[in-house]
């Protein structure tokens, strides 16, 4: 009974620590002498050898560490390469449109426009390689300025940076006015 308890404790410790833990520290934590602790660990090692287990305990110079079995390597490679589903949510789209048209822009400026903290959206857009840091604002705290990436241009079929409406603020104004006029005309035509 007590043995089972000690095994559970060792398993939990090695799992949490991730790194190699010296025998002496393990023994202290589970309130047994080193010799007994060593025996318990070696007994556990035998159990982990079972083919239904994917992890093992290895000994490293008087310390013990939990790690995956070598035979699991291919499986681990596989899982890390299974792409996660990426979705451009409304939140992301909204943030992206603000950055696209207002770049270069700081996080605070984005948040002022949206009215809510936007760290998550910004991080996701960076991960998706749609936006990136383009510099720092010359203001207290030197906040990061964000802009869109080349990938962004390519994806939207814009050939060069010159085609990006937001690069030149005046151009953006023109573009916006134009678009508004167009929109107005469309409505009037109805």
């Amino acid at each position: 009974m007590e043995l089972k308890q000690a095994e559970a404790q060792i398993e939990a410790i090695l799992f949490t620590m991730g790194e190699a833990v010296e025998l002496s520290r393990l023994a202290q934590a589970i309130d047994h002498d080193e010799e007994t602790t060593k025996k318990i660990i070696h007994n556990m090692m035998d159990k982990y050898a079972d083919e239904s287990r994917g992890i093992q305990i290895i000994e490293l110079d008087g310390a013990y560490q939990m790690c995956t079995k070598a035979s699991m390597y291919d499986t681990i490679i596989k899982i890390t390469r299974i792409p996660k589903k990426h979705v451009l949510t409304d939140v992301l789209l909204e943030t992206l449109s603000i950055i696209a048209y207002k770049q270069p822009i700081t996080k605070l400026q984005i948040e002022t426009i949206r009215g809510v903290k936007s760290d998550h959206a910004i991080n996701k857009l960076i991960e998706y390689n749609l936006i990136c840091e383009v510099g720092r604002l010359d203001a207290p705290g030197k906040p990061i300025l964000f802009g869109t990436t080349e990938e962004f241009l390519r994806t939207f079929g814009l050939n060069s940076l010159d085609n990006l409406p937001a690069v030149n603020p005046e151009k953006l104004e023109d573009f916006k006015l134009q678009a508004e006029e167009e929109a107005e005309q469309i409505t009037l035509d109805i």
Partner: protein
Amino acid sequence: MSIPVKLEAFEGPLDLLLHLIDKNKINIYDIPIVEITEQYLDYISQMENKNLEIMSEFLVMAATLINIKSRMLLPVQEKTEEEQTDPRQELVERLLEYKMFKYVSEILKEKQEDAARYLFKQPTIPKEIANYKEEIDPSEIIGDITLQKLHEIYRSIMKRQNDKIDPIRSKFGKIEREDINLTEVFAKIQEYGIKHKVFYFRNLLENQSSKMEIIVTFLGILELIRLGRMKIEQEKMFDDIKITYLASDIIQIEEAGF
């Protein structure tokens, strides 16, 4: 009750009310409103916090309490059964709902303490695999979003932004009283409606419409809907409101009973 109180200790007016109810050990369904109102006012008169925003929230509740109190003091007229609702009813419901969430947050607090005993592990992906970076294809993520769509989204966000700013006040830096002529606006909507039949809410507004103009125009539209003289649609998020004008004549504001 001469002990000075710090109102920040209460998380808002509902919290203070619940405190008073608990302290007096009274039935939440039968609040002695006169007493509670007095105690409540007592508390806020001792308010040390001069933060206007916090203060105003407490004052709103004070006004509500006084309103209930005065309604309860008025002689009860003979009414049908349906009309005989307790003036305290709405407040009681709010208090109960608030109290329930306070109760729930206590349960969650315990759950959090229990769950804090589960310990997790940092990922230990082997270096050679960790260096592998998943290829993210932006065009796949973007899917069928066009630059046009992105532009629309941006415009709608900016519209919302602009709506929040009163253009007159923000431009001149001083407060100017503006007179919106209700009769004129009402007539203007109808004239525009007869001329265009189908149009958008934004078409009715000048480029730099003030908040008041927007509100009055909107109220005018609501009134005309009520009278069955127009109908409105909004197809999807961020869209402008589409108005279809149904009548062919103009009615005066007096006729509309606006």
